[in-house]
């Protein structure tokens, strides 16, 4: 094993020179939304702790979450949640070996983008 050629192999394309395309962008967004959801989840846990502490502290936390800034974060989190959920479904489909052709992957990519916006609007209306 120690004498395997490790020097003359093709390199994967560097991010800087790689032409952006729907699949790479939707994949990056999936990672971004998943990790960014930390912010919303910290706020929700904090809100729960405040609710457990008492009415006064709850008023502070609830006030911040329902302020303009808080509402923006919550709206962003709802969208991120739906985006990440739909992108996750695409991964589950891919894991079965289906939908890996570029055309189908692109179709599902648009489904994620449009679907996440539609579901976000629906969620805001219902909530």
């Amino acid at each position, binding site marked *: *094993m120690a004498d395997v050629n*490790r020097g003359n192999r093709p390199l994967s394309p560097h991010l800087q020179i790689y032409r952006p395309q729907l699949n790479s962008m939707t994949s990056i967004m999936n990672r971004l939304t998943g990790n960014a959801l930390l912010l919303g*989840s910290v706020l929700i846990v904090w809100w*729960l702790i405040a609710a457990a502490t008492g009415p006064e502290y709850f008023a502070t936390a609830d006030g911040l979450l329902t302020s303009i800034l808080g509402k923006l974060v919550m709206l962003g989190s709802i969208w991120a949640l739906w985006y990440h959920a739909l992108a996750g479904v695409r991964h*589950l489909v891919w894991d079965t070996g289906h939908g890996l052709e570029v055309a189908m992957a692109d179709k599902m990519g648009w489904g994620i983008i449009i679907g996440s916006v539609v579901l976000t609007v629906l969620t805001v209306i219902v909530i």
Partner: protein
Amino acid sequence: MTYMTDRKRVEGLGSARSGTGHFWSMTVTSVALLILTPLFLFSFGPLLGQPHADVVTALSHPFRAIIAALMLVVTFHHFRLGVATLIEDYVRGMARKIAIIMTIILSYGLMGAGLVALAQIAL
């Protein structure tokens, strides 16, 4: 001739027998979250901005409490694994180990804090 040992070659590339553990755990938690997320959004979301007494009453309801508790457990388990992948992709060496440990501490910390708060409200 290079002095690359087999040990050196496989280090950090996942061990035998547990190599698919991470993948499988992500698959299971994704499916669970597909069920839990809508339930959580629509049962928990409307509580934001409600008076304290109403929130306490609502979260004392077993269905809401169970959904919220499961959401906390599964989300932060999924989050821990996902962030670990991010760190493995971009961070190297000792910083990687420290970052992954911090992620695990943060995930279980938030999960625990949320669960205790929920228990205090619900009981």
